[in-house]
C-alpha cells in the first residue's frame, strides 16, 4: 500500500529542490526516507540536513506514519 508523506524544505534546499513535496511511496522510517531523498535529489548527499517529523527532530530509526509532516532542515550559513 502506498503512503502519503508531505515534506517541507528549508533554506538552500527550498531553492534547489522545492518548498514542498508530496511523496506517494512507502517509507518505514527516517533512514529509508533519507536514502530515498538522496537517490532522487543528489544535492542531499553533499549538504548536511536534519529531519523533523511533526516538528520534532528525529533520528534514523524513528518510524514514519502515514500523513506525517516531514521537515528537512539544512544549516544556514549567512550572518
Amino acid at each position, binding site marked *: 500500500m502506498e503512503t502519503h508523506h508531505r515534506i517541507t524544505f*528549508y533554506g538552500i534546499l527550498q531553492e534547489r529542490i522545492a518548498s514542498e513535496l508530496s511523496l506517494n511511496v512507502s517509507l518505514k522510517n527516517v533512514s529509508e526516507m533519507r536514502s530515498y531523498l538522496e537517490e532522487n535529489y543528489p544535492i542531499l548527499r553533499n549538504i548536511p540536513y536534519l529531519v*523533523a517529523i511533526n*516538528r520534532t527532530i528525529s533520528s534514523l530509526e*524513528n518510524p514514519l506514519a502515514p500523513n506525517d509532516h516531514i521537515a528537512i*532542515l*539544512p*544549516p544556514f550559513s*549567512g*550572518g
Partner: protein
Amino acid sequence: MSRYIRQTCLAEFGPEGQNRLKEASVVVVGAGGIGCPVLQYLAAAGLGTIGIIDGDTVEESNLQRQVLFGTSTLGENKAVAAAGYIHNLNPHVNVKVHAYPFTSENASSIISGYDFVIDCTDNLHTRYLIDECCEALQKPWIYGAIHRYEAQVAIFNYHGSPTYLQLFPKQSIEKIPDCVDNGVLGVLPGLTGMLQATECIKLITGIGEPLVGQLLVFNVLNMQFVTFPFAVKKPRISGEGECPVHLLSAREYRDNAERYLLVDVRESNEVPVFPMAKRIPLSEIHLRIDELITDKEIVFVCRSGNRSRQAAMSLAKTNRFNQLYAIHEALY
C-alpha cells in the same frame, strides 16, 4: 545605578540579574549583520566584559544592516569600530578587541577567556570550529544564522544538548550561500542577533526558559516562528562504570525540591546564600563525602553550572552513589 533601572525593576531580573551581567564575559565571533545588534544590546544591558572578534573592515555595502557602523567608520576594522560605538553607548563595559580573523590557531586561546560564545559568523567552517572549541572547553555557545528570508537560532553545548557537529555532520562539500551570494534584508540578521542576545541574557541571569534542546527557525516573509525540539537523548556525561550524572534546570530542581539534598559547592564567601542548601566548597567535596550519604538524591549547585557539574562528575567515580544531579545554570 539609574542606567539599568528599567531592567532591575523587573521582579525576576532585579539587582541580582544586573550583578550577574556585570560578572559575566561573552565573546562575539563576527561583528557583521548579526554581531552588531548582539553587541549593541549586550553592551546596553551592562555586560561586564565583551570580546569582539573580526578581521574585516567596514564597507559601504555593510551599512544597510551593520548598524554599529556609519559613513565615518568606512575602512576601519569592524572590531575596533564596534568597540568605539560601545564605549560611547556604555563606558562601563570592558571591551576586548580581537581585530583579526578567528582561526583554528587562535580559537581556543580566545574562547578560554570568556564564559559564553555568540556565533555571528557567515560560514559553516567557522561554526564547526566554534563547536569543536566550545565542546573541548565546556563553553556554551549561541548559534544564529540566516538564509535569504529565514533564520535559525539554537544553544549548543549547554545542559547536555547535542553539539552542532552531531546535528549537522561535516559531510558538506557544497558551499551553502551566504549574504554576499544571496542578498539579505537588514532586519533579518538584526532580529536574529536580538534573539541571541536575549538568550544570552537569560542564560547569564537564569530567568525564563532558555532555548535549550531545540532549533528555532523563523521566516520574516510569513512571520512563522517554529521551534523544533531535538528528540536526541541527552548524552551521558559521566564515564563508563561510573554512576550516572543528570543535569537539571533550575526549574526542574524547584519543581521537585523535596526529593533532593541541595549542595552548594561555591566558596564560603560567595553570595547570595541559598538558605535551603548545605554548603561544601568544591575543593572539600571529597573530604566531606560522608555528609552526602542520605536518603535524598544529591544535587549540586554553584553560580553558573560549571562547578556543580565538576562536583557531580568527580564524585561519580567514587562508587558511593547510585546517581548524582547537577543544576546546570544559575539557580535564580
